[in-house]
Each structure stands twice: as structure tokens, then as C-alpha cells.
């Protein structure tokens, strides 16, 4: 025992080093403590390749590298022949997504590590987008080598499929950025030329020739803003007109065109007012709000993509079975009917198949929602997508991966998605009425002035259109949504669809899935009954000692419950498939498992404790001729579930529970949480029917789920949430993904939605007030251009400042 036993921080990642750990790396002649073998391996690699100055240069700890020590063999499945890497005859290129970049030293370390690799011709890291571009020679290097090299220094990299993931979004953002720049430059310059006329117009000191020069200069500089920057509005207006609706882009376009054409006419004839500054400012402000909204959504999209960067689906193929058991790792897509595959505990089954050797517990919770593991024996069929929970299995493939169980669900999802109710956007409906009212009003004003003073008719009508440019009105919604999306993203909520906040606020029904959503989706120790003279704590200690090293989900539950108890290890541990474990602790032989297994050494079972409890999985502990304890395990509720359900009920929303799990378990969870309507044993299409029937009665349904069996209903619901820990398929069809896998995030989102809607209403109220004062003033001919410019800027600033309040939380 030495003095180092106190808690220190890992030199690599900064996490606390567990007491008594033995991981050390000598860096720059000093021995440094590491928290885990992963960090140790990474730090050692960094020292070995001569980059230990990384530790001097960095200004933040590296990401924890616990997983880096194990380089998954699936990386080898990426090959140079893959079309996505093709460049030319002798070289390949790839764009990789890299995680864990914290500071300048990371950039340098990754680039150095890769340029050291034989065959790598170029490596450059884009820090803003966290993308790494690599070019390598086909002859000397494989993509797997590159991914592995990046992992060795503690970062996770994976190929980034530009076609599949928001590359379009990125391109859109680049174009929008340029349009914004042009509009900004043009706005500032036009302001300069307009200022003299504002300042000198009153006292008439501006000579008419000079005024005309300034107007022509403004006209020229407004052209780029109109012809290039304002294109998104024109396109939006055109497409909404073709769809025979009046969207927000229509009044915007109308305003821009009225201001511009009116000013051009005034410039040509030398009479009337010019509004070039208003037009450019208007374009610039609106583009700003669009740009920030797009940025927020792009950030969310890239976080989602990071979550789903699954390794290529793979399978372990025994090609020579039964003559040889040599195993090779192959892509799951290449399996054909009749192939024999090996599935180890913890792996997913690649395709629908039949067990030819072994028996094991399968976790079907993501497929069907059943919380308890299902036992399958030799000769039984297993669905693709199930996770093997306890023992290695040999399977014969019955259907190729793409025709497996999953594909039926995919068809269901397609059906669900096409039946999704059209979301009527409130702001657009408001805009439609606004435009209609405005046009009628402008015509009325024009008619009135034609009769009253014909020379003023055109200028006044244009002034009405310009001043009513619904700048504040059209900024109100996007700025608030962008601020809310951004603030939620920082709290681990990815808003993928723009309508989420509005629809969630309007939702009348909230439907929860049970397994994995309201519950943790894994067994937790609920109760320990002592059956012998040893107390519960002592029994738990023995059980934990036996279970150390077992991959079975029940073992994990026991170990979690034992937590900090120092339990040591059992000797001579034997695992009997489907029965339990046997091992020796302190010279005594113990058995932990089902009643029959323990009874074999402990004698006849004891009265009523030998019978299980509904909804619970019992686990017995016994020694020679004595019973010691019964552990009851079941899927536990998430601690925050009650609070979340209560929140929605308090806000007048109907909370429902739909689960694929047994009716009794579903009802007991519903009772515990105070949910009135619960339905168990629902198949995916029954869930879908249920939700669609609700929608048919006019309900707005929000759905929270995590499994593959929820994907269809997530896609059909008006607004949906998927847990970050759930199935990728569910995430792909949800409008929102909860990265943190905390149910509380749903509550966060709901309260942010309520606040956003309040702020949007405030903004719209303010914009209406502004328009109600400014439009009559313009109609009466009181408004001069500079006053309308100031009014527009001020009203927009108020709206933006109000929206930014959402970022704070």
C-alpha cells in the first residue's frame, strides 16, 4: 500500500482514477496515473509514436478512451473496393467523422498520427465540422488501418456518407451564408448613400444632381441583394403560389418587389421616395433568421448522425461447417440462405434463422417490447435483430438479412408515414390572412388617393406595402424556433423536424411505450428475501462474487445492486446454460440460478417462496443442503417517469400506455404511474391502428418510444420522440431524438415548447401592434422613408431580442 491510493485524476482524460488502480504511463520521464486500460493504451501509443508533446500543448483533457483499447474487428470490413472510397486507379479517399476533438493539440495529433501511416498521402481535419479528409494509396493501406490508427490515439472515427447524411443541408447553409454576406455588404453601402438625403432633405441643401447620383448608386448596389440574396424568398413565394396557398414568403416577396420597383421608378423619373435601404435591410434581417435556424438544425442533424454511426452490420460466418469451425467476419448483407453463423453473447442476430446448436436467452425488447428475455432452444426459429443475451449460438440462416423480420416492419413504417396528418402551420395561416387583408387595403388606399390626389396615389400605395413588409411578423416564428432548438440541443434533445415545438404544444394525447421508455429496459434487483441464516447483504455479496464475469443481463443487475460492496471473485465458476451458475467461495460450493438448479444441491424447495411472483424473475442462491436467498428482479421504472407523466396530466393532456409486453405487466406499470388507459400485448400494427383511430377523432398525438416495434407508430404520430439508447430505426422515424436517453428531456422539450409558443405569440402581438400604427400612418401619407426604415429595424430588433431569451434556461 502506498500513498498513491488516494483519488487522483487520470492524466489522459481527467476522470477520477479508481483507488488501487495499476495503470501507469511514463510521459516525459514522469509516471502518470491512468483511469482505465483504454486511456493507458492510448497514452502509451502517443508516447511511443513520439508525440508526447501533445500533453504539453493541449489545453483540455482528452475524451475518455475506455473503449479505444478494444478495436472492433468490424472495422476490417471496410475495404478499398468499396465504391464510397473510390478516387482513381491507385488511390482512395474518404471523409471521416471524428469524435472527441477538444483542442488544438487534438488536430495536430490526429494529422501526425495519420501522416505517419504508410500509404497515407494526405490527411486534413476540418475542426468546425469535425470531418477528416484522408487520401491514401490502394496498395499500401486499407480503410480499416486508418480508422484503427485514429482509434489508437483515443478518437473514434467512422466513414461519413455524404449522400446519406445532411450534405445537402451543408450546401444549403453555404449558399445561404453567401447570400447573407452579399445582403449585408449591400445593406451597409446603400445606407451610406441614403444617409445624406435623410440628413439634408429637411433643409434642402442637397443639390438635385447629387441626390440623383446617390439614388443611382443605391440602385446599383441594391441589385445584388435583389438578384441573388432575395432568391430564397422569391422561390418560396413562387412555389407557395403554385400550390395555391399564401405562405409567409408571399408578403415578403411582395414587400421587397414593391419597395424595389417603386424606388426604381422614382429614380428614373426623379420624383417620389426611394426605399432601397429598407429593401436591403429587410432582406438581410430575414436571411439572418433563416441562417441561424438552418445552423441550429444542421447541428442537430450532425449530432443525430453521430449517434447512429453504427459499425457495418456484420456476422460471423462458419463457412466450412460442420467440417471446420473456422470463423470469418463478413458483412451481414452477404449472408445467403443456408449459411451457418455464430452469434456470441451480446451480439445481434443478423438474419432470421433457426438454432442448430446451443440454447440461449434472447433479448427481443427492441423488436416486440417484451421486457423479459425469451429462452430459445435448438431447433427453434429466431428473428433477425434480436440480441443474444446469454450463450453462444450456432444458427442456420433462413432468410437473407434484407428480407428478415425487420423488413416487414419497414413496410409498416412506409404505410404509417404516408398517412401522417398534414401539419397546418399556424404562422402560415396567419400570413395568408395578413396578405389578403393587406392587398385589399392597399387597393383601397390607392383608389382613395386616386380620387383625392392622383399624383400621390402610387407613392402612398407603395409606402403602405413597404412599411407593412411583415418583417417582424415573419421573423417572429423562425427566430424563436432557432433559439429554442439550439437551447434544447445543448441539453441533449435533437429536434429533427421543424414543427416539433408547435405540434407538441397543441398535442392532446401523449402515448408512451413501456419497455425502454417508461422503464429502463433491463432487469433491476427489486427485492431480496433471506431464506437461511445469512442476511440479505451477505447473500448479495455472495451472488455478486458468483456473477462477476458473466454477460447475462441478470448478472449485470446483481452486480449493479451490489455496487460498492467488495465481493471478490468466486473460484471454479461454471455456467450451466439456462440454469444458473455454480462456484466456490471460501471453500463452500454455492449455486445461483432457477429453483430446480439450486434444489439439486440445497434439497427440497421451501414452501411458497419457491414459486415466482408475477412480473418478476426469481433467482435463488443456495449451498449444500441449505437455501440462502431469493432475489426478485424485474424491469424497473425510470426514476423520472412518474414526474413526466404527472406533468402532462397536469397540463390537460391525456396520457396513454401502449406496450408489446404482457398485459399484466403493462397494467401494473400503468397503475403505478397513474395512467388510466393502458394496452398491453400490442403488435406494431395494432399500435399504429390505435394511434390512427385517435387521430381520426381529431386528437393530436405525441408518441414517445424506443423500439423497432415503435418505429411505425412514431412515424404516424403528429409528433414523436425516440430514446437515444433505442433502436436506430425508431430514431430514424421520430421527429425528436433524446440523446441523453433521459425521459426528463421530454418534459424539458414540452416546457420549452410552451415557452417558445408564448414568445412567438408575444412577437406576433408586437408585430401586429407595429403594423396597426405604421400602416394607417403610411396610408394617410405621413410616413417618410427614413421613419419607416427606423421603425422596421426597431420592430425587428425587439422581436429578435425577445426570441433570444429562449436560449437562456
Amino acid at each position, binding site marked *: 500500500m502506498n500513498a498513491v491510493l488516494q483519488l487522483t485524476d487520470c492524466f489522459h482524460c481527467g476522470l477520477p482514477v479508481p483507488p488501487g488502480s495499476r495503470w501507469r504511463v511514463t510521459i516525459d520521464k514522469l509516471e502518470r496515473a491512468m483511469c482505465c486500460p483504454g486511456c493507458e493504451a492510448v497514452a502509451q501509443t502517443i508516447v511511443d*509514436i*513520439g508525440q508526447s*508533446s501533445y500533453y504539453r*500543448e493541449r489545453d483540455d483533457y482528452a475524451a475518455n478512451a475506455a473503449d479505444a483499447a478494444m478495436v472492433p474487428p468490424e472495422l476490417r470490413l471496410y475495404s478499398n473496393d468499396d465504391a464510397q472510397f473510390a478516387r482513381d486507379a491507385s488511390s482512395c479517399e474518404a471523409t471521416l467523422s471524428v469524435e472527441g476533438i477538444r483542442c488544438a493539440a487534438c488536430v495536430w495529433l490526429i494529422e501526425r498520427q495519420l*501522416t505517419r501511416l504508410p500509404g497515407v498521402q494526405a490527411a486534413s481535419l476540418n*475542426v468546425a465540422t469535425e470531418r477528416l479528409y484522408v487520401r491514401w494509396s490502394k496498395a499500401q493501406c486499407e480503410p480499416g488501418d486508418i480508422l484503427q490508427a485514429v482509434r489508437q490515439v483515443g478518437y473514434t472515427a467512422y466513414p461519413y456518407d455524404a449522400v446519406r447524411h445532411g450534405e445537402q443541408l451543408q450546401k444549403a447553409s453555404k449558399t445561404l451564408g*453567401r447570400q447573407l454576406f452579399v445582403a449585408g455588404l449591400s445593406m451597409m453601402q446603400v445606407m451610406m*448613400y441614403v444617409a445624406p438625403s435623410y440628413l439634408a432633405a429637411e433643409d434642402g441643401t442637397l443639390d438635385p444632381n447629387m441626390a440623383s447620383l446617390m439614388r443611382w448608386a443605391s440602385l446599383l448596389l441594391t441589385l445584388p441583394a435583389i438578384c441573388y440574396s432575395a432568391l430564397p424568398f422569391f422561390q418560396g413565394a413562387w412555389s407557395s403560389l403554385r400550390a395555391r396557398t399564401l405562405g409567409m414568403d408571399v408578403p415578403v416577396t411582395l414587400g421587397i418587389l414593391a419597395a424595389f420597383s417603386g424606388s426604381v421608378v422614382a429614380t428614373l423619373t426623379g420624383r417620389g421616395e426611394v426605399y432601397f435601404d429598407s429593401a436591403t435591410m429587410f432582406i438581410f434581417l430575414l436571411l439572418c433568421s433563416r441562417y441561424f435556424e438552418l445552423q441550429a438544425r444542421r447541428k442537430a442533424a450532425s449530432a443525430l448522425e453521430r449517434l447512429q454511426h453504427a459499425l457495418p452490420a456484420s456476422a460471423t460466418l462458419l463457412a466450412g461447417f460442420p467440417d471446420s469451425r473456422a470463423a470469418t467476419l463478413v458483412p451481414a448483407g452477404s449472408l445467403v440462405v443456408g449459411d451457418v453463423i455464430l452469434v456470441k453473447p451480446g451480439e445481434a442476430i443478423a438474419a432470421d434463422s433457426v438454432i442448430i446448436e446451443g440454447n440461449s436467452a434472447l433479448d427481443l425488447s427492441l423488436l416486440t417490447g417484451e421486457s423479459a428475455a425469451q429462452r430459445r432452444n435448438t431447433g427453434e426459429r429466431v428473428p433477425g435483430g434480436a440480441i443474444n443475451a446469454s450463450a453462444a449460438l450456432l444458427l442456420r440462416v433462413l432468410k437473407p438479412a434484407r428480407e428478415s423480420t425487420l423488413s416487414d416492419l419497414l413496410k409498416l413504417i412506409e404505410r404509417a408515414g404516408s398517412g401522417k396528418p398534414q401539419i397546418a402551420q399556424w404562422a402560415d395561416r396567419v400570413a395568408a390572412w395578413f396578405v389578403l387583408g393587406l392587398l385589399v387595403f392597399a387597393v383601397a388606399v390607392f383608389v382613395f388617393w386616386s380620387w383625392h390626389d392622383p399624383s400621390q396615389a402610387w407613392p402612398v400605395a407603395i409606402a403602405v406595402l413597404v412599411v407593412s413588409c411583415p418583417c417582424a411578423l415573419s421573423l417572429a416564428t423562425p427566430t424563436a424556433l432557432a433559439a429554442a432548438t439550439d437551447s434544447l440541443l445543448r441539453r441533449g434533445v435533437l429536434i429533427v423536424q421543424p414543427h416539433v415545438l408547435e405540434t407538441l404544444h397543441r398535442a392532446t394525447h401523449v402515448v408512451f411505450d413501456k419497455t425502454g421508455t417508461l422503464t429502463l429496459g433491463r432487469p433491476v434487483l427489486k427485492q431480496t428475501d433471506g431464506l437461511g441464516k445469512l442476511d440479505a447483504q451477505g447473500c448479495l455479496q455472495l451472488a455478486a462474487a458468483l456473477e462477476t464475469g458473466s454477460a447475462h443481463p441478470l448478472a449485470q443487475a446483481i452486480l449493479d445492486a451490489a455496487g460498492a460492496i467488495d465481493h471478490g471473485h468466486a473460484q471454479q465458476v461454471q455456467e450451466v446454460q439456462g440454469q444458473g451458475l455454480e462456484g466456490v467461495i471460501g471453500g463452500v460450493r454455492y449455486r445461483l440460478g432457477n429453483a430446480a438448479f439450486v434444489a439439486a444441491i440445497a434439497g427440497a424447495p421451501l414452501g411458497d417462496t419457491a414459486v415466482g411472483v408475477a412480473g418478476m424473475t426469481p433467482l435463488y442462491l443456495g449451498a449444500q443442503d441449505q437455501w440462502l436467498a431469493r432475489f426478485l428482479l424485474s424491469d424497473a421504472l425510470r426514476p423520472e417517469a412518474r414526474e413526466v407523466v404527472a406533468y402532462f396530466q397536469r397540463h390537460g393532456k391525456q396520457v396513454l400506455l401502449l406496450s408489446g409486453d404482457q398485459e399484466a405487466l403493462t397494467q401494473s406499470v400503468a397503475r403505478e404511474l397513474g395512467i388510466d388507459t393502458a394496452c398491453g400485448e400490442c403488435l406494431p400494427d395494432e399500435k399504429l391502428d390505435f394511434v390512427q383511430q385517435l387521430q381520426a377523432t381529431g386528437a393530436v398525438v405525441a408518441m414517445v418510444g424506443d423500439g423497432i416495434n415503435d418505429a411505425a407508430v412514431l412515424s404516424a404520430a403528429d409528433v414523436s420522440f425516440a430514446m437515444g439508447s433505442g433502436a436506430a430505426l425508431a430514431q430514424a422515424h421520430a421527429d425528436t431524438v433524446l440523446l441523453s436517453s433521459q425521459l426528463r428531456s421530454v418534459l424539458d422539450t414540452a416546457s420549452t415548447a410552451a415557452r417558445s409558443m408564448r414568445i412567438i405569440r408575444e412577437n406576433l402581438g408586437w408585430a401586429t401592434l407595429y403594423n396597426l400604427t405604421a400602416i394607417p400612418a403610411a396610408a394617410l401619407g405621413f410616413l417618410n422613408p427614413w421613419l419607416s426604415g427606423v421603425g422596421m429595424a426597431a420592430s425587428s430588433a425587439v422581436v429578435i431580442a425577445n426570441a433570444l431569451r429562449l436560449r437562456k434556461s
Partner: protein
Amino acid sequence: MESLYLLIPLSIAVVFIALWIFFKASDGGQFDDLVGPGLRVLQDDDTTPAQPAPPQPDQRE
């Protein structure tokens, strides 16, 4: 005041030249990564001790 008749057209020309330069730079990828280059200049290669790092063009003295 007559100088303005020259200066204002000149200023317009300057704005259009600025726009042209901006588009060229944007096409060339100048604005793709606004963070990385700032970090890269902070790393001095000469502080690296003589380790068996591979020869790199910018490292040779």
C-alpha cells in the same frame, strides 16, 4: 463637391470587386473551416524533440 462624381462610382466599383473576391474565396474553401487554421498556427513543430517522426517537408531544417 465635384469629386463625389468620381468617388461614388469608384466606391461602387470597389464594392463589386469585394463581392468578386468574396465569391472566389468562398469557392476556394476559405470559409469552410473557421476554427482549425487558428488552432494549427499555435503548434510549433520545433518544440518536438528529435523523435523517430517521419521526415516531413516542413520539418526539415
